[in-house]
């Protein structure tokens, strides 16, 4: 198959992302990834956590098609070889840690339109994509604003819009809550709550993951050391501490309040049904 044919090829059957013995070494010789085995199904919502230097960003760069895979990586069924990277990049939306890296054009509107135009879409479609992406992030009013005059939260909203305008099948976010104030964070959480396709978030902000993902992979030393259900892993104080992480504040507060059984901590996404689930001892019977 030629490069051109490969570029035209759409998603293929299989999980959204599958890594087998994926490894990477930086040019100066440092190991970025040791050996990662991970499978993320289509439509699943995953968090990638781990201490600094554990390889989270490197793994995400592989998912986004920045590097050709050493070992094996399939993205939407397509192996991440050098030839397939352009196709993979069109299917995966990647958000950088620093929005200033993502927003390289002088105005927000021009930046959001950049990807769709490069994808060869007509002007009407580009316009619709730009308007839709900005509206979805609640930042339509920023369209004609100079990028360098935006606040941190506004930059983050605009940066996510640049990714959304490409209508990706997989959304990959690297530390999306960096420098966000409470309002911007709420907007981000609202947006993530409404995202129905595959989602991968690498972050130190475990509180964010508590409400947005279903599965967690813990990376340490360039390898995936644990994976599992988010509501269980995020409440496993010992596991988190072992890998240089800290439990989300909500979980800590509940634990300190005496809720010792992690399975009894309410999931913030579920409707609150009162404090009945709190593991507080029943009051002693009144003495007559």
């Amino acid at each position, binding site marked *: 198959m030629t490069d051109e044919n490969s570029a035209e090829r759409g998603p293929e059957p299989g999980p959204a992302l599958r890594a087998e013995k994926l490894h990477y070494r930086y040019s100066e010789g440092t190991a970025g990834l040791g050996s990662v085995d991970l499978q993320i199904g289509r439509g699943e919502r995953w968090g990638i956590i781990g201490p600094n230097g554990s390889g989270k960003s490197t793994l995400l*760069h592989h998912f*986004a*098609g*920045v590097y050709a895979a050493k070992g094996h990586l399939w993205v939407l069924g397509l192996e991440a070889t050098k030839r397939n990277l*352009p196709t993979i*990049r*069109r299917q995966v939306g*990647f958000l*950088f840690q*620093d929005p*200033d*890296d*993502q*927003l*390289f*054009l*002088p*105005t927000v509107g*021009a930046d959001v*339109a*950049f*990807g769709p*135009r*490069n*994808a060869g879409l007509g002007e009407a479609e580009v316009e619709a994509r730009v308007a839709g992406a900005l509206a979805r992030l609640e930042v339509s009013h920023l369209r004609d604003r*100079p*990028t*360098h*005059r935006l606040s941190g939260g506004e930059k983050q909203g605009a940066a996510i819009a*640049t990714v959304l305008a*490409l209508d990706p099948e997989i959304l990959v976010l690297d530390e999306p809550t960096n420098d966000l104030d409470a309002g911007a964070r709420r907007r981000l959480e609202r947006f993530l709550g409404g995202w129905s396709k595959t989602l991968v978030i690498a972050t130190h902000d475990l509180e964010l993951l508590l409400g947005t993902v279903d599965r967690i992979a813990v990376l340490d030393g360039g390898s995936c050391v644990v994976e599992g259900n988010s509501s269980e892993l995020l409440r496993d104080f010992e596991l988190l501490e072992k890998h240089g992480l800290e439990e989300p504040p909500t979980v800590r507060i509940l634990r300190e309040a005496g809720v010792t059984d992690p399975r009894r901590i309410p999931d913030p996404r579920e409707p609150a049904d009162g404090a009945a689930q709190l593991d507080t001892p029943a009051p002693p019977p009144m003495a007559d």
Partner: protein
Amino acid sequence: MHREWIDRSAHGDGALQRWDPRLKVGISLATLLIIALGSRDPDAVSVLRLGGIALVLSAVAGYGGIPWKSLLLRSLVVLPFVGFVAAARAIQIVHGSAGGLHLGEWTVGLAPDGIEAALLIIGRAWVSVGVTLVLVLTTPLPAILSALDRCHVPRGFLETCSLVYRYLWVLLDEGGRLLLARRLRGGPVAPWRSGGAMLATLFVRSLDRGHRIEVALRLRGYQGTLPIGRDLNWTRSDSARLLIAAGVLVAVWLAAGLVSGGTGT
């Protein structure tokens, strides 16, 4: 901050901001050309012509709501740069003993017409910077780039300008933070005393950022060209403004010649 003042003004809603950028770029370039083509000798025609342009510039700045004091002061930024050239024109060094400062066999003194010529050089540079300032204070850079793009200025140059404009702010912010961090820990207050180390740090950070921007471009399908600027809309009013501006410039050119009784060349 100077840069914020410029940026806010350029994105403002004044009378000049509503003019088509092509018109403003065209008038500015024509004015700069007239200044550049003027005689280098401090004759009456050159001085009157420069004075006329300065008067028109003040009137335009006033019409556009640009505070003339700020304009005057900020355009003085050119003085340190042009001062050396002006000094070189004003001073002459001759062999032998003549009126002036004797340095061995050499004498340093004022050239004939040296002061007038030096003042003309400074005046021309000052007014040129004033013209450029009025343009950037009333036109956002993306709009200026759009106008230059329509004038077939090479895309590579415009794309570089666009990226520089975007990241200059980021770099300045980073530089400001570095400087502050140094000061807070007792480092030298004057930027030039820690300039070398700071520039080196900024350079390394810029390399890193450059790499990340390159990745960001690739991930969004960069094919070798960046979009430049925005849609432009030339109106009838702009045509009328063009005629008026051309008339004013020709009038200044001719009037200076007539008033001084010269040839107007």
